[in-house]
Every structure is written in C-alpha cells, then in structure tokens.
C-alpha cells in the first residue's frame, strides 16, 4: 500500500526484486494445483468429449456424451442434486448460524468448547455408517420409529425429505464450525455503539451485523452446498436410485455390474458438476471480495 504514496522512487526496484521471489514461493502451490487438479480435470474433459471405438481402438472427438449427460434421467439427476443441495445448504446454514450465535454469546466456556468439539466430530460423520445409524434409529423398523410410531405421521426415511434430514445431520455442525469465528469477529463495541446511537437490535442486525457477516454466511452456504452436492455413500446406502442424484448416476456408469461402456457419460457428468460448482463460486467470490474487509 505504501508504494502508492511514493511512486517511482523506491517502488520500482523493490517491486522488481520482490517479483521473482514471490513467484518462487507460490511455485509449490501452483505445481500442486496443476498436478492434483489440472491433470484429473484435463483427463475428465478429454474423456467427456472423445470416444474410443472398442473394435479398433480409434479415438474421435464427439459431443454425444455431453449431450447425453444433459438429457433424460441424467438431467433429472443433476436437477435433483442441485435441489437437494440448495435446500439442505439453506436450512443447514440458517440453523447453523442460530446455534453458533447461541454458543458464541453464552458465557459458558465449557458449552462453547463442547459444542465446537462435537461439531468437529459430527461434521465428519458421514457415509455408510451414518446411513446405517439412521436406518437403525428412524428406519422402517428403527427403534425410534417403533417407539414414537413415526410412520403414522407420514415419516419415511427413504425419500427426498428423509435424505435431507440425514444430510442436515452433518451440514449443521459444519456450518457451526465455519461461522463461529466470524461471529466472534463481530465486535461487541459495534453493538454498543449502535445501541448508544439509539438503534434497536433488529436495526443493528439489518445495517451492521448481517452486512458484515454476509461474506462468511455466503461462504458457509457455498461450502454446505458443495458438501451436499458431492455426497455419495450415504445416499447410495439409503435411497439407491429412487431419489435421482448425479453422484449416484456417476457411480452407476463408472463402476457397476450392469451398464457397459458408459464411462464417458460419467466423465461428462463430472464435468457438469464442476461447471455447476464453478457457477456457485462465481456468484460467491465477487460478493466476498466486496465485504471481506470488514472482518480484518
């Protein structure tokens, strides 16, 4: 920043000297990113737009896989995944913030560390064990289902709603984890200043709290969306093919015992997923840059 106040004099040489060194420092990161994300992405994109004839091994360019990935059941699965992820990220985000705010403002250090530790554990509890835990408690013959007669209320674990509830089980703790530091950053002085200027609690949140938190909230939403969007094992064990999800479709096409020669469609679906994730990020990044400076 200081270089803008004294241009030319010292800035030129300093910048030139700094330039290559900064480059060197980022080189490991760039190499890592290039290798670990670039190569798979390249391989995926290549597979999505080419087709190898099994008979003679000749490879040619084609748009047929991408077209198929955006039709019929494949399109339904993409829509289903986006719907489920958006809904669970929204609900999980709101509930997570409320819980985190309660924990952060409570004066008990014990509650705070307990809640954060528990969140850390629960946020990483997923996959088949989680699915089976839910089956055993609130499945059709689950313990709680039997005791509370949940079926009479129309409860069904093996549905869109059931899956959303299971996803919330790890999404809410994840939101608590990512939003608690941001809530900590909300200085009490700001609230006091607002109050002494005559603002109500609602006005404080409307004009100070939420704008300051916006990037973190949005970031949390994006993280939750991504987590739900990419989840696979839990859904596979719980609902099989009866809730269309894109990750399940990819698994069917890539490593099944039934469909042959669908690998390229799976790669095209993977590319579609990256595009959707990219779109979500594209909305998030500029907004975050605009308001991030408040939380320094």
């Amino acid at each position, binding site marked *: 920043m200081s270089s803008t106040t004294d241009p030319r004099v010292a800035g030129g040489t300093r910048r030139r000297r700094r330039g290559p060194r900064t480059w060197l420092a980022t080189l490991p990161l760039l190499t890592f990113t290039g290798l*670990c994300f670039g190569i798979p992405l390249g391989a995926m994109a290549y597979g999505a737009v080419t087709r190898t004839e099994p008979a003679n091994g000749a490879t040619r360019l084609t748009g047929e896989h991408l077209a198929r990935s955006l039709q019929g059941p494949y399109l339904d699965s993409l829509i289903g995944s986006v719907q489920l992820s958006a809904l669970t990220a929204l609900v999980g985000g709101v509930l997570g913030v409320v819980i985190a705010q309660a924990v952060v403002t409570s004066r008990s250090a014990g509650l705070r560390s307990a809640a954060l530790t528990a969140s850390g554990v629960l946020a990483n509890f997923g996959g088949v064990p989680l699915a089976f835990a839910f089956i055993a408690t609130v499945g059709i013959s689950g313990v709680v289902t039997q005791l509370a007669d949940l079926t009479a209320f129309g409860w069904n674990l093996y549905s869109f709603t059931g899956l959303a509830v299971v996803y919330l089980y790890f999404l809410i703790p994840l939101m608590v984890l990512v939003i608690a530091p941001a809530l900590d950053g909300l200085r009490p002085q700001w609230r006091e200043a607002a109050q002494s200027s005559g603002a109500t609690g609602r006005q404080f949140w409307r004009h100070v709290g939420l704008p300051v938190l916006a990037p973190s909230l949005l970031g949390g939403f994006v993280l939750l969306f991504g987590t739900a969007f990419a989840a696979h094992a839990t859904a596979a064990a719980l609902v*099989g093919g009866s809730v269309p999800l894109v990750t399940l479709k990819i698994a069917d096409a890539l490593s*099944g015992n*039934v469909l042959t020669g669908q690998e390229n469609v799976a790669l095209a679906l993977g590319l579609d997923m990256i595009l959707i994730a990219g779109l979500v990020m594209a909305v998030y990044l500029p907004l975050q840059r605009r308001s991030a400076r408040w939380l320094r």
Partner: protein
Amino acid sequence: MLSSSARRGAAVLLSAAVLTTLSACGAAPDQKSGGADGAKSVQPGAATSVADFGSLEALAAAAQKEGELNVIALPPDWANYGEIIKAFEAKYKIKVNGENPDASSSDEIAAVKSRKGQKRAPDVLDLGIAFARSGAAENLFAPYKVTGWDKIPAAQKDADGRWTNDYGGYVSIGCDAARIPTCPQTFADLLKPEYKGKVALNGNPTKSGSAFGGVYAAALANKGSFADIQPGIDFFGQLKKSGNFIPVESTPATVEKGETPISIDWDYLNAGYADQFKGKGVDWKVAVPTDGVYAQYYSQAVNKEAPNPAAARLWLEFLYSAEGQNLWLKGYARPVLLPGMTQDGTADQAAVAKLPQVQGTPAFPASEELDKAKATLAEKWDKALS
C-alpha cells in the same frame, strides 16, 4: 490426490515391466524346447486347452514355475470363494494374490486395461455376463477351453472360449419368517398389502447385477420377456406406489437388523444368510418365485496379457474340476457343470439337497436382448421409482 503422481510412477513401472516381459518372452521358448518332457510345447500365454501343455501335470508344473496367481473381485464370503482359494493354494502350492474383493465388473475391466503388461495385472476375471461379452469384443481375453468344455451348454460359453460361465443362481425371495407371518412365494404375492414397507432389492438395478436380475425376473412374471423389461419396471413402480417397496439396499446388516425383512437377491446369497443368521433372531427362508424364474451365471475369463498365464489356466482347470465345482456348490451357488455331475455322481449330494427348489431348466437372454433391457432400465427406472 496421489493419482496423478502415482500415474507417472506407473508409467515408469509400466515401461520397465514391458521390457522385462519382452525379454522373458524371448527366453521362455528356449527353456521349453530344452525341456525333456517331450510333450507338445507351447507358450503358456498361447495355450487354448490343457492339450497344448501335454497334460494337467505339465500345466501344473508350468504354473508352479510362475508361483503366483493374481485374482480380483473375489470376496471370501461370496459363493464360497474363500475356501476355493485356500484349496487351490494348498493343492498346487501357488500363492493367490487377492485384490480388491468388493470390486465390480467394470473395475475388473479397468484393471486389465490400465495395467497392461504389469506384473500386478489380474490373471483371471470373474465377470458379469455383459462385461464378459464387451471385454471379448474389445479383445481383452485369451481363448481357453477347459477340460469339461463340451459339457457346458452352448448358451453358457463363448464359441471361441474367450469366456465361459462358471456359477450362478436364481433370483429368489428371502424372507425373515420370525417377522413375517406368511412368507411370499411369488412376485404376485409381493403386492399384497401385508408386505407394506418390507420389500427390498440388493442394490440399485442400474448398478447391481443381482438387483437387475430381480427386475428382469419381475418382468418375466408380468408378461414381459427377455426383450421387454418394462413390465418389471412397472411392477416395482407399483410396489413403490403401494408402499411395499423400500429403496434401501439390503445387506447382511439390514437383514440382521430386520430393516429388509423381504429381500430379492440371488438364491445363493439368500441361502447363505439363512446359515449366517441362524440363532440370531432371524429365521431366513428362501423361495425361488415360480412366476418369474430367472437365472444368471457369472463368467470366467483369462486376461490376454496375464502375467502368470499358466497359473491362470490352471486356476480355470481347478474351478471346472469336480472339486472346484463342488466347492461352489457348498456356497449354495449352482456350478455350470452341475447337470453332468449329477448324472455321473460326482456332485456333492448333501450340498445339492440344500439348494432352494427350482422347476425346469433356465433360459438366457441373447446379447442384444440384454443390451436392450439395460438401456430401457437406465432410461425408465428413476422415473418409475420417484
């Protein structure tokens, strides 16, 4: 994360492996022709039957020289594979390297393709029929005809011997008699209101072979045919609508827990559950539905570029011997040579008696019919069930 750097390493290894196999190939015929056994000598990788080795003993000797066999996707608790592998190791003193027991057929094909020329490539494959056919079309398998080849029905083998059906079973209805007062015997029974929230499949039929078999059998039970699987999809749609069908994948865990008290699965898996859960509060009964009889067999194939070609062929000879076939039978699977073995008395009678009862002989869909059924299923299944 590791895959990219691993792939580089693999490329280096691969070229090294290619070099070693090339030099090994050059050396092998000299040793052979110099051998004193005087029998027809052929490179193990080119042998299409035991006659090319001269005798089973010569084949066993060649396999022992290799000393190892790479297998993939053979779960020890599936159709008694655990015991089969142990018996083979003990009989021929050959080490069996099992890889990824829970792999799927497409994983197996991927392993063959990605590890061409490497020592770690799988020698033999146990494949779903569709993958056996597509793999043969891609020229991945070596043709080999086992000793009992002529006794295997023509519909159960590739004419060139690139794949051969090995063991299989019927679509069956497993049912926990401790929880269900009257167990369903047919597909029609499953629609009864008393089975609300109780009927499951072993997986998603667009992915799992046994679940696909379940839908195919349901199609046959509802005026469908091998070429027309739609009635089966409609049947499960109807089951879903009536609330009888639960989409949870039945596994040993869900069966034991009672979450999937009725499970449509291969009869050998269901029969295995009956043993496994005896005395655990689960009284597992198995019925092969009379209205939808559908059998499916898995196939054996030898990797064309098997690193242990003689051991691979010896493994097939072992599997299709009376000993190997009886070991499958012990795991409740129906070995492909069973009809002949029942006639000549080599079949294990006690094991045969324990198999679920089936009337008639199974029929098999042609390749095109199977492809058509799968395409229909992939297109329509989600819609029917959601």
